[in-house]
């Protein structure tokens, strides 16, 4: 059984070989110390749950949840778990110390410039996506729970409310009531839903809003009734607060904040994608609006909110696989019509089977024109435009919805490496690329690219070739 009263250690004490240095943080659920160990050169922290008389009964569950999650995840976007104490004797978690800044540090000086918001948002959304890919939903993202490594990667901390898609949810019975931080909690979490990765997308939206405007979209409400206002009262459009916020950023933020999870981005990777490519964001009314909805519209939503039903929960990883980012590598200079048709068929099949997929058409152009006169029509800008036009033309027979197709012209003298880097940075789930085949004009050129992409890709690669004519 868990000890009734756990005496918290003091600086100078040694616990299981860890020397307690200073106390860094005292919270409602846990106390955090800086600790050192003779076996570790890098700085460490120890998190001890507050248990016993007068301590919240949920903290033991939160501690166990955090331990389960940290044991199961890895990568640069979570703190490395070094050691853990026996829960029946002395529960603690020792983790690496993250020395960089905390996202909340940016909130100290008022609104943050749009480019900086986008940069921070890409780091945050990439970290959240990395977590979702490991079947974990954070469910308590706040600016205080996002740290940065000196190398720039975001690190998510505090997994006490998190949910692992393949483990029993210890929190579930504790929280028929909503659990989370009032300002950042999603509408479905208010109803006890703890299985939708898009709840984290909502929290990303609140954080982006806060960074861009210096204000919280829904304030910090207390009480169930005040919390429920976010079901029907839309937040003030960010551009009405800070007029310099571009429409694309408002579009992204407000899409994250949609009440119905299905109307939000399907994955954090898509948020990162849009924040990295502002020129590709489809700006609609959401991005342009300058005032909140009128009282009649709000009243109607209030009325409907009485019957609000959270969207059904997807499995964490299956939700991601149904919202893939598919990169189609089009060699506009080499492609012949047979190969183009075969590739379009492949895109069509992928698109038909995946509900929320995004298709990114990319082509690689050389940064310098070799052996040619530098003319105005051959300037880099014009060649980029031409590449984009060719990509649109290539995709035209597919008749894909415009909000799900993106075109990118990459500049590099090494097409394979350019495609691989793009795939890595944009969390691409699948690459579709043409193979070389006998009879292809300039046989070999795209094929060599495909071979290199296949051998080094961070994801699946579909290599397409037309059926042999017999």
């Amino acid at each position: 059984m868990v000890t009734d009263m756990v005496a918290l250690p003091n600086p100078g004490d040694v616990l299981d070989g860890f020397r307690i240095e200073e106390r860094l943080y005292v919270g409602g659920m846990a106390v955090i110390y800086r600790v050192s160990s003779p076996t570790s050169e890098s700085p460490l922290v120890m998190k001890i749950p507050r248990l016993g008389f007068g301590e919240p009964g949920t903290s033991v569950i939160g501690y166990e949840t955090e331990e389960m999650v940290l044991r199961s995840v890895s990568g640069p976007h979570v703190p490395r778990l070094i050691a853990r104490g026996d829960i029946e004797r002395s529960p603690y978690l020792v983790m690496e110390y993250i020395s960089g800044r905390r996202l909340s540090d940016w909130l100290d000086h008022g609104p943050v410039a749009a480019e900086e918001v986008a940069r921070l948002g890409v780091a945050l959304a990439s970290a959240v996506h990395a977590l979702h890919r490991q079947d974990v939903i954070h469910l308590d993202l706040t600016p205080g729970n996002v740290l940065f490594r000196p190398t720039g990667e975001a690190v998510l901390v505090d997994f006490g409310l998190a949910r692992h898609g393949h483990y029993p949810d210890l929190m579930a019975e504790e929280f028929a009531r909503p659990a989370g931080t009032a300002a950042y909690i999603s509408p479905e979490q208010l109803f006890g839903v703890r299985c939708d990765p898009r709840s984290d997308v909502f929290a990303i939206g609140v954080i982006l809003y806060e960074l861009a405007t210096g204000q919280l979209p829904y304030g910090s409400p207390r009480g169930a009734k005040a919390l429920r206002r976010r079901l029907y009262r839309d937040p003030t459009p960010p551009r009405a607060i800070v007029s310099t916020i571009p429409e694309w950023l408002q579009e992204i933020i407000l899409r994250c904040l949609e009440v119905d999870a299905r109307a939000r981005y399907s994955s954090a990777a898509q948020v990162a994608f849009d924040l990295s490519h502002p020129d590709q964001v489809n700006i609609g009314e959401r991005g342009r609006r300058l005032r909140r909805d009128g009282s009649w519209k709000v009243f109607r939503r209030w009325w409907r909110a009485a019957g609000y039903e959270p969207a059904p929960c997807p499995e964490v990883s299956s939700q991601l696989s149904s919202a893939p980012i598919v990169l189609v590598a089009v060699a506009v200079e080499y492609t012949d019509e047979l190969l183009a048709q075969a590739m379009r068929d492949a895109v069509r099949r992928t698109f038909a089977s995946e509900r929320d997929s995004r298709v990114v058409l990319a082509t690689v152009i050389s940064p310098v024109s070799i052996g040619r006169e530098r003319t105005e029509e051959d300037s880099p800008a014009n060649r980029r435009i031409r590449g984009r036009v060719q990509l649109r033309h290539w995709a035209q027979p597919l008749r894909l919805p415009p909000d799900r197709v993106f075109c990118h012209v990459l500049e590099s003298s090494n097409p394979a490496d350019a495609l691989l880097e793009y795939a890595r940075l944009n969390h691409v789930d699948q690459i579709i690329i043409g193979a070389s085949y006998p009879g292809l004009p300039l046989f070999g050129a795209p094929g060599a690219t495909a071979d290199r992409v296949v051998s080094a890709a961070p994801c699946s690669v579909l290599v397409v070739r037309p059926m042999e004519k017999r």
Partner: protein
Amino acid sequence: MKLALFADIHSNLEALQACLVHARTQGAERFAFLGDLVGYGPDPVAVLELIQSYAAEGAVVVLGNHDAAALGNSTETINHHARAAIEWTRAQLSDRHVAFLSGLPLIVHEENMTFVHASAAAPDKWIYVSDPLRAAYSLEATPASYLLSGHVHEQMLYYTGAGGRPMSFVPTPGVAIPVARHRRWLVIAGSAGQPRDGNPAACYAMLDNAHATLTYHRVPYPHVVTADKIRAAGLPERLALRLEHGD
């Protein structure tokens, strides 16, 4: 110590062998057979002899309702196909097999584990632990951290949080679930010999007591061979189809 848990084997030799091979490659060092060793399937003798050999080396074996029925005890809890199979089974068994079945306990307590075919609340009543309330009754009957059982053919994990009210969890095969010893867990291993969730692959579970993890597994086996044996033995066609469709 990794402990492999097999329930509801139902005279399915091919499924049991496939599960045993799988468990050994996964590092199983101990074995438990959670009742319903016979019934439905075509190989009661071979299955019993295999399990007897494991029992001789220290495996835990408990009695199930089909085993009790094969001994001539009440058959009221089983349907008419099952009853036909039980009568056929009874005719296959020698005195030695009957003696082995007769000697099986209904429930076994060992360290922090309890082994039982159905509900620990009334092991001889063959109650289906198919919801959190029945799981609660079964858990109340033992102080063990791990209550290991079968009877219900679908894999399931019931667990208790701080509030003490059991909740159900459908496990994902192959995922090692942390199952802390200070909590209570009711493990339904799933049927090795007659899966009913639409997937014909055999079910079993593996408890790693040292690391406090539990992994549910699904193991494919040549179920068509077993189904053909059922037909050849003249057992009801429905029992053969069940293995082919996993329903």
